[in-house]
């Protein structure tokens, strides 16, 4: 039996098709968020992987900010529980999950069974989120996806003191005009993100193992800096950006078993 989970985020849509609640048979990511045709496209892309149609899917659930906007879904779930469930599938030992998305930072504590126990989210501010990195990448004239590699070349990390994305942008621009190395600047940007996220994580309490989900988890610079701030190893799965979609696909499987 096949279930589908779609995570309609603020900046990207992700989709997973799960077979019998165990095997991921399709993955798709579209860099278009809620309010666009991203959800429709990721839905079609995921089906296309195995030449499937909607009729082949036994249940479709959605999560994310755009979860109320996809008519082909059978139900919707809060992204918090979905991230918890998805990461638990990928890393059963994880008790703290840090999800850095396009606009949100979420820190979740989960039980040994992967149930959500408590959570904190960022205040109404983009500092430390994917949006922060997008803005910085724009100033540096690079792709956001390249930041991790660029930061690896740092020799003298440059401190970015402003937490506000807009003010930090000004700060980076002024530092660029003093000919600092791009790698050193990027390392400073990663440090800024990690400090902001770490503060939130400490507020929620850290229980090992710590795992990350969300697109920013693909940035090895941020992961490394955050690990230093939290003084612990951080687990990152190749499917980290799909954790929400995976989690909601797993919820869909549970509903199928209950005869929904």
């Amino acid at each position, binding site marked *: 039996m096949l279930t589908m989970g779609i995570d309609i985020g603020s900046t990207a849509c992700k989709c997973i098709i799960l077979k019998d609640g165990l095997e991921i048979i399709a993955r798709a990511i579209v860099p278009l968020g809620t309010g666009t045709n991203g959800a429709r496209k990721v839905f079609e892309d995921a089906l296309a992987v195995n030449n499937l149609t909607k009729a082949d899917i036994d249940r479709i659930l959605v999560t994310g*900010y755009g979860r*109320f906007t996809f*008519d082909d*879904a*059978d*139900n*919707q*779930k*809060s*992204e*918090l*529980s979905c991230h918890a469930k998805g990461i638990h599938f990928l890393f059963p030992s994880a008790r703290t999950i840090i999800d850095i998305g396009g606009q949100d930072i979420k820190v979740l504590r989960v039980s040994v069974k992967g*149930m*959500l*126990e*408590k*959570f*904190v*989210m960022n*205040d*109404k501010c983009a500092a430390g989120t994917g949006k922060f990195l997008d803005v910085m990448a724009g100033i540096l004239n690079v792709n956001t996806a390249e930041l991790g590699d660029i930061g690896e070349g740092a020799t003298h990390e440059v401190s970015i003191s402003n937490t506000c994305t807009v003010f930090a942008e000004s700060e980076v621009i002024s530092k660029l005009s003093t000919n600092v190395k791009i790698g050193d600047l990027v390392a400073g940007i990663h440090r800024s993100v990690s400090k902001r996220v770490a503060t939130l994580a400490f*507020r929620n309490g850290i229980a090992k193992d710590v795992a990350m989900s969300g697109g920013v988890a693909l940035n090895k610079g941020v992961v490394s800096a955050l690990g230093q701030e939290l003084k612990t190893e951080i687990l990152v799965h190749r499917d980290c950006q799909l954790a929400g979609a995976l989690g909601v696909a797993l919820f869909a499987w549970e509903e199928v078993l209950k005869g929904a």
Partner: protein
Amino acid sequence: MIMAEHTVQKPKRVLPKSRIMVAEQTSQVYKDARDAKARGEKIGWSTAIFPQEICETLDIPVLYPENNAASVSAKHLGDELIQHAEGPMRFPMNICSYARLNLGLADKIQDPTYNTADPLMSSPDFLLLANNSCTQLMKWYENLSRNLNVPIFFVDCLFNYYEEKPAEYKVKYIRKQIEGYIAAIENFSGKKFNWDKFLEVQKRSQINSKLFDEIIRLNARTPAPLSGFDFFNYMSCLVLCRGKESTTEIFKQLKEEVEEHIANSTSSFPAEEEFRVHWEGIACWPNLGHNLKILKNYGVNAVINGYVTAWNVVYEPGNLDSMAYAYATSSTNSLSTPSIMNMRADTIQNYNCDGMLCHVNRSCKLMTFHIFVGRNIVEEKTGVPCVNFDGDQSDTRVYSEAQFETRVQGLVEIMKQNKEARNG
């Protein structure tokens, strides 16, 4: 597909008689002030928990800027005044939004043609300030005093950082100030203070506080007979008219209505009560409608909150020490974080709450910043989840509808898990 009811339009419900009485009472308060001004008599503006018994005894109309700001904000009329305070008046945006709104209004009403704010306050001749709810009030009222050229009668209340109960010297200090201001306001107003009437006002205040407490306690039942948000509507009786007979009549009517709900197994909560939460913090006045809509959609009744009980100023009539003690402690803002949050934990248990929803009110640092540490106290003591959301009591720039719903949904998922685990 199951969707949250974003677009369902429901007809407005018929207001109960008690709510109509509240509206009439509030109108009368503002009318009394206008009429007094027209007669050339003095009126005052007061902070929320100043000893109201003094002016009530002297029959001097008093208006309450914080309550007014809440009403103006709830009617979505506050932005203009806040912008006026931040713009030409140059107040910074990081001070309390009640202060910004009121300072803006105080300036606007000097123009006799101004009439946009609702309710519209009459300009004060004096100010009554007690800092038992916060110290920012001092600067707010200092600015009012300077801008309007009116005096302040200031009851200085000391905070209780490490004590469960205020020390004796604090009670003496407040008592002395109350005695002093009785004489001072008598002299300022030219009206004679009647101690027999003062005793009657004290007794009436206790009757009203006791009645309100009885009504609130009825909401500890499961399911609750009232939507907890309804308490926000009745607070004004205790803020504006704590010592008046009209408040007694309103509360008697309200109690009847609640008891009728209990007898008929009905509730003013507009959905099936699936979860009960304690609401921590001041209301999000401009966004109350959205708060209630989302909570209703998820079957969450905020059955009790710490804010509404702040005006239960309980003391022994005829005993000034007892009255001074009550004013030193009635607002939990004057207590330490462990004191406040232990009280919240007890309330959560007494009201059978499944969770706690905390309004991180950007304007009221004192009332909400304790949440970041305090939620751990509550979670450990009660085992219920606590969730925060960002908002503001009057400033509309802080609240985000999508963020509120996401956090409520997360809270509901944990409460649901816990409930299923309890029920096996």
